[in-house]
């Protein structure tokens, strides 16, 4: 297969050695979980339990509303102690959440029906199962999967790309999942291919994950329609549009979606969740996260119930409140969000918690003038001109910003990584997007 490439991109330090050889461990049932009703792109779910109700693990507690939304399920068994706005790691303001206090017994919901013989049903039935299980994209954006699997009729989709790139530094959860559950991942992939009636599936893995490639290859060689594509390690290789460009040399048009070029991209974690939901009948109540970084004595990859508080996870992993200044990052170091308080829950889209000792902390206001060096233009994977976007946003000239297409920005952070003046280019572009959307 020919190898293509996307323009730009960077090679940040990988920092994966700390956790890449640690197998996935079950995280003990926490005392309480906080399950936000809005963990996904789209409308928040509506609570269908009340304060004082007894719930079991896997029971649906929030019903999706509207076209783009997802169900939420309790991840442990116990009592609903409260439904109130709670800290949220992404929105940074309190968002309605259901708090479940554990009874310590971790009762699982009774599985009524499994769809192991999914090919006997219609694709619509299977999409319903996935919707019922509350599955969202586990790569980070948390877009409801059942919506992604129901593209407009006129779009013809011919290829499924399964994204196992994991280009973010530090994170190893997808890597481990591919090594330990390759069979389930490929089975989930086949379910997606059945739903969309496509006959070409490609698992895309970066060349720094030798073990994962080997594990997937062992399963894939039995599957006639599925192949493995090894791509160069480069950030942001795992970004949807860049992935399609690299593997298939198709360019998603500006403002378009992958199905505009006949492709659907799913994360390996999502594929695993689809397998669990369809074949085992289990809703999405847990996910694998990487806990790594400084001050962590017990790093690793853990399968954590969704809604577990960061403070519980960190103290289990040997983190103690430190004297030295440090950051707690939800997600990877390139695109993750640093948290001010530890009393925040893990969401479906959270891929890791990274603790970072910050020796040279740079605050938002401390940056130099742009020296026009053009490094950001060279590395931008969307081939934008971040220097001008940043410059005009700094001076609040939003209309000027528009000429440089801020809405095409995928916020990968390559520009800010390379910038010698340490300008907060991504934030400037985010501001431009925000002000332009308000008009």
């Amino acid at each position: 297969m020919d190898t293509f490439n996307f323009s730009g991109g960077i090679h940040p330090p990988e920092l994966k050695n700390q956790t890449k050889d640690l197998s996935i461990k079950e995280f003990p049932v926490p005392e309480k979980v906080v399950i936000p009703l809005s963990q996904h792109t789209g409308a928040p779910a509506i609570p269908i339990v009340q304060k004082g109700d007894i719930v079991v693990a896997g029971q649906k507690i929030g019903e999706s509303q509207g076209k783009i939304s997802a169900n939420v399920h309790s991840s442990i068994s116990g009592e609903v102690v409260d439904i109130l706005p709670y800290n949220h790691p992404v929105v940074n303001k309190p968002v309605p959440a259901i708090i479940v206090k554990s009874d310590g017994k971790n009762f699982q919901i009774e599985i009524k029906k499994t769809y192991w013989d999914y090919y006997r049903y219609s694709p619509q039935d299977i999409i319903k199962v996935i919707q019922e299980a509350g599955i969202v994209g586990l790569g980070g954006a948390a877009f409801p999967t059942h919506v992604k699997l129901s593209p407009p009729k006129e779009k013809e989709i011919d290829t499924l790309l399964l994204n196992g790139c994991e280009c973010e530094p530090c994170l190893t959860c997808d890597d481990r999942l591919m090594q330990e559950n390759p069979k389930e991942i490929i089975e989930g992939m086949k379910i997606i291919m059945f739903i969309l009636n496509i006959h070409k599936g490609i698992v895309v893995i970066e060349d720094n994950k030798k073990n994962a490639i080997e594990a997937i290859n062992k399963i894939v060689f039995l599957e006639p329609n599925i192949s493995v594509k090894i791509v160069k390690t480069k950030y942001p290789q795992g970004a949807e549009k860049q992935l399609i460009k690299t593997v298939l040399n198709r360019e998603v048009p500006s403002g378009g979606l992958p199905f505009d070029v006949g492709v659907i991209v799913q994360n390996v974690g999502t594929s695993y969740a689809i397998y669990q939901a369809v074949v085992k009948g289990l809703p999405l109540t847990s996910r694998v996260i990487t806990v790594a970084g400084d001050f962590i004595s017990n790093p690793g990859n853990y399968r954590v119930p969704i809604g577990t508080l960061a403070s519980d996870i960190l103290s289990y992993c040997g983190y103690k409140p430190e004297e030295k200044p440090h950051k707690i990052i939800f997600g990877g170091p390139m695109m993750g969000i640093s948290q001010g308080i530890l009393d925040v829950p893990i969401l479906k889209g959270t891929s890791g918690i990274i603790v970072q000792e910050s020796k040279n902390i740079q605050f938002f206001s401390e940056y130099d003038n742009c020296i026009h060096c053009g490094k950001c233009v060279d590395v931008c994977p969307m081939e934008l001109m971040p220097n001008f976007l940043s410059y005009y946003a700094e001076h609040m000239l939003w209309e000027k910003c528009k000429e440089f297409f801020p809405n095409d920005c995928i916020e990968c952070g390559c520009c800010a990584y390379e910038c010698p003046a340490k300008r907060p280019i991504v934030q400037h572009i985010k501001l431009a997007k925000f002000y332009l959307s308000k008009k």
Partner: protein
Amino acid sequence: MNQNIIVTISPHIKSKNTIQKVMLDVIIACIPVMLASFYFYKTNAIKLISACVFFSCATEYVFQKITKRKNTINDLSAVVTGILLAFCLPPKLPLWIAGLGAIFSIAVGKQIFGGIGYNPFNPALIGRAFLQVSWPKEMGYWTSPFDGITSATPLTISKLNLSEKLPDFFDMFLGNIPGSLGETSKIAIILGALYLLMRKQIKLYTPFSYILSAMVLSLILKSNPVFHILTGGLFLGAFFMATDPVTTPITNAGKIIFGIGCGFLTILIRIKGGFPEGVCYSILIMNMFTPIIDKITKVKRFGSER
């Protein structure tokens, strides 16, 4: 709440590249040229370079103190300006004139516009242009290397059709000709440029299009192209001045347009204009076109119609 938890914006890791390191690379790239000038002009070169560097740094410091701006002396850009200004001055220029040039470079060429990043013109060349019009006699006083005897530069000889013999191309390449401090030794300039290329601080688009277009136009105007690229400040201008990031276009296409413009203007001034040398003014003129060039050479973005 834990006071030691810090919230900042993504990305949380950044490259070690800073403006200071960029400028340090330029200074390192200047070292071969400096050594060549020490070799050819002895103490004159040392005095001139130190005076220019001292006055640029002092001006930057004082200006930022008076205007109460953030002090940016640490980013070393004033040092670079000082060195580059000294490179384009005649070796026996009185130090007070050189000092005034450095003060003008930093104050009017850079700080008035808002400091590093906002200057529309190359500060070192602004300083040189200022000296050229204010003290034309001193700025036209050239001496030969080693012995310091008054002699005309090859460009002046060819411009005024003087009776002196032109040096051969090998001497021009080594730098054994009369001329400004840093412009004579082409081999030293190429060494410095190679370092900058290796460190990815410059791209070859501008220097190549500059030199090629200068050769093409001198051919059209029936002049010797090799003579034109080996004399005067063309190499220094092409590799050190026209590659200054702040005042030149950002895209590769823009850099090529910029280089072509510089090359054409340089040869036009040399052959048809009133001055024997045109590098300084051609780059300054093209600096003015940088915003327009940037505007017409926007990169084609991902997913747009190509």
